[in-house]
């Protein structure tokens, strides 16, 4: 079982091997690097507008003019020189349009937060969780040689690249980029006259449409692979939970994304062909609420697409490093299925204050509150897994624990907003921003970090540096909480979201306005720390790829099949397809010598495999 024999011996060209690869592992790594690059872009956008929120009128560091220049017109810094040049040139320069003298305009601020959220949701979290982990893990963990449709798989990646290019192009077209929020509410997004944005909004739609194609072919592939290509003995209830989560997410993507794509087509018609699907005119026409219904009918399943694979990853990390079976395997599966079902009937909780009929609000409140139940079940099961375990505080485990604790906070804040009367007050305040980031950053991203460190030895045959990983973890964990926890308080104080100048905010709402300004500065400082901490991760990632300690075949002593494959995993994955004899979480089985019993180990044979 441990021969390093390649199953296919033919030499592949460079292009086929590294660029237009058909190998699920390479495509997975491509998605990972793609996601990390986009992560830096999305994060950079956030830091830009966080500056504005802390110092609405102060020029940005580095590219803004200096104080001396403002006061006396004296050129002291490189930036001053640059601005002199810009002022002297006759052409309308990009920077001058959006950041005169280094102070961001309100219009550009709107573009930045719109693109920050769009990039993070569609180009970071989904590509990494679904594209990278999905591709890398599914064939390896179910015990097969590749995906069902390798060419579709490759297309899925290159569609995603195309979508990212289209999205980034939006910054450079006349009128600037989309500025109607990642939710693109109509009529604001439906007509250039309301924002001054011409092609940006259309490119936004086009890009998401292409990204939808990428998700579509990807999800068809995942579903087919999981249903048809499991190794002998790998029944559905022996699947690792991360595979369950990816399978469920593939179904959600397949059903949800076309709704967004259709809505986008109608939106583009509204903009280009003068239709009025999403705008109400005096003569009749469509309805702005139709867009919201379509968007959130897609959007709520989408937020569960963002979290389910994170839950799956945490469900791998916690048993492995507690050396215990997952607590309540079946209830974990049923909880995920329940979340996936309920996820379709809660979209209206984003529209409580939208003018939707109040009676509907009550119904959506009920279904939304219900979704807290499977979320709670999962949390208790993770705790149950650690109960009487033998917990190892490795870097991946730290991230797994952070995932659970941050998800709890995000889930609990969800209850406030699910409650219609309370939502009347906190809707569209920073409370929502806090909630989003606790679930998506605190949840999904910590799982992503943990997953990267955990599977890195299988991906690249080396460990990531442990000290750097732990420094990165603690910095991220602390800076994350300093950045996002205070946002709950801002929200309760009435601080609206999506505003560019918080100094004017809430001046008479709350008498603590000075405190609000201070809090915004504190949040910005923490956000910069958080951003820079990520450089450690990236450095560690690329450095360890070449210089990391060489890893054994199964360094963490894990039961699942991906660790049966040799490292580095050859084309075709396994010498011989393994047979599965048991569930994925048989750790510390009584009577066994070792504290782990791999899925592929025949009955009554001693554990082997970890060198």
């Amino acid at each position, binding site marked *: 079982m441990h021969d390093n024999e390649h199953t296919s011996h033919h030499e592949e060209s460079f292009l086929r091997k590294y660029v237009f690869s058909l190998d699920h592992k390479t495509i997975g790594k491509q998605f990972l690097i793609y996601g990390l690059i986009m992560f830096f872009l999305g994060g950079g956008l956030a830091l830009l507008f966080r500056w504005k929120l802390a110092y609405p009128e102060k020029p940005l560091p580095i590219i803004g003019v200096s104080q001396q220049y403002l006061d006396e017109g004296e050129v002291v810094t490189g930036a001053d020189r640059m601005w002199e040049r810009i002022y002297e040139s006759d052409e309308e320069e990009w920077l001058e349009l959006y950041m005169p003298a280094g102070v961001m305009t309100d219009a550009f601020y709107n573009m930045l937060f719109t693109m920050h959220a769009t990039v993070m949701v569609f180009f970071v979290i989904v590509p990494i969780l679904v594209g990278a982990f999905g591709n890398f893990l599914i064939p390896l963990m179910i015990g097969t040689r590749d995906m069902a449709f390798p060419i579709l798989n490759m297309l899925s990646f290159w569609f995603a690249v195309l979508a990212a290019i289209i999205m980034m192009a939006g910054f450079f077209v006349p009128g600037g980029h989309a500025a109607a929020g990642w939710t693109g509410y109509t009529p604001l997004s439906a007509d250039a006259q309301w924002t001054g944005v011409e092609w940006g909004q259309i490119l936004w739609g086009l890009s998401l449409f292409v990204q939808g194609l990428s998700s579509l072919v990807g999800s068809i592939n995942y579903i087919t692979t999981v249903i048809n290509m499991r190794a002998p003995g790998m029944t559905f209830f022996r699947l690792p939970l991360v595979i369950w989560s990816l399978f469920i997410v593939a179904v959600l993507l397949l059903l949800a994304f076309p709704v967004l794509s259709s809505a986008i087509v109608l939106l583009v018609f509204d903009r280009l062909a003068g239709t009025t699907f999403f705008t109400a005119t005096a003569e009749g026409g469509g309805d702005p609420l139709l867009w919201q219904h379509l968007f959130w009918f897609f959007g709520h399943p989408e937020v569960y697409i963002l979290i389910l694979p994170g839950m799956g990853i945490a469900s791998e990390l916690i048993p492995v490093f507690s050396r215990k079976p997952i607590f309540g395997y079946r209830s974990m599966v049923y909880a995920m299925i329940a979340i996936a079902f309920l996820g379709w009937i809660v979209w209206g909780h984003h529209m409580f204050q939208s003018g939707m009929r109040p009676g509907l609000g009550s119904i959506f409140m009920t279904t939304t509150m219900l979704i807290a139940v499977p979320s709670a079940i999962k949390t208790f099961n993770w705790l149950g897994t650690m109960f009487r375990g033998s917990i190892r505080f490795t870097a991946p485990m730290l991230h797994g624990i952070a995932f659970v604790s941050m998800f709890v906070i995000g889930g609990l804040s969800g209850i406030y907003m699910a409650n219609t009367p309370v939502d009347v007050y906190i809707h569209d305040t920073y409370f929502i921003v806090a909630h989003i980031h606790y679930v998506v950053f605190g949840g999904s991203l910590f799982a992503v970090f943990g997953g990267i460190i955990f599977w890195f030895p299988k991906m690249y045959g080396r460990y990531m540096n442990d000290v750097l990983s732990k420094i990165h973890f603690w910095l991220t964990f602390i800076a994350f909480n300093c950045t996002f926890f205070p946002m709950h308080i801002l929200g309760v104080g009435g601080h609206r979201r999506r505003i560019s100048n918080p100094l*004017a905010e809430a001046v008479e709402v709350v008498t603590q306005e000075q405190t609000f300004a201070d809090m915004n500065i504190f949040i910005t400082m923490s956000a910069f720390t958080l951003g820079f901490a990520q450089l450690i991760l990236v450095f560690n990632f690329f450095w360890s790829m070449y210089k990391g300690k060489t890893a054994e075949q199964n360094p963490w002593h894990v039961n699942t099949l991906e660790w049966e494959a040799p490292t580095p995993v050859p084309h075709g994955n396994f010498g011989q397809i393994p047979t599965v004899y048991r569930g994925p979480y048989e750790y510390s089985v009584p009577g066994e010598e070792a504290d782990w019993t791999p899925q592929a180990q025949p009955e009554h044979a001693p554990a082997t495999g970890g060198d």
Partner: protein
Amino acid sequence: MLRWLPENISTFGQGVDTLFSAIYYITLIVLILVMATLIIFLIKYRHQEGKKATYIEGSTTLEIIWTAATTVIVFVLAMFSYPQWNKIKSPNQFPENPDVVVQVSGKQFNWDMTYPGPDNEFGTDDDLDLENELHVPRNAVVHIRLTSQDVIHSFFVPQLRLKQDALPNRFINVWFEATKAGRYEIPCAELCGFGHSEMRGYLNVHEQTDYDAWVQERWPQEAEGGQ
């Protein structure tokens, strides 16, 4: 956290605040319990030489208990919330015979307030248009006819615990009764373009006598006007 809530000045706001604090204490207790359990487990069950983990696959009893417990909690919360929600938002439960009716219309980036005048009808000569200033008496039922002239805006008065989106070509009714005189902000809570940040109007709650004087000033011939 609760002390950050701005002062409540509406009759239904108290109910919102009560729910808010109920949820606050419930979630706080859950959070403390979960975090404490987590930390205790992390310390107590950390890896120690020679100690193995105990093989436990799960417990159906526990699963049933915590599923049932969370279901009950969320349903009880929901039960208390329906009436409160209907009181704020369901037009058929609004107090009838409002003392004041005003049309509030959002536009990039202002609130247009229209008073129907003594004849109580919109679109007549005695209508009064005010930009960004809403005047109402204290302890009076006010009905707002909310609409928009361009994109979606959202009428938000934090102290009233009231928020409602304003949609173009639709009239959505909301109501409130303010219990304290003063001047309060009406920020726009829905992204409406580059001026969204600065879009705000003001709600002026007057004592009845001051309000009457204000009405008298606007519509001098009508002693009892502006109703």
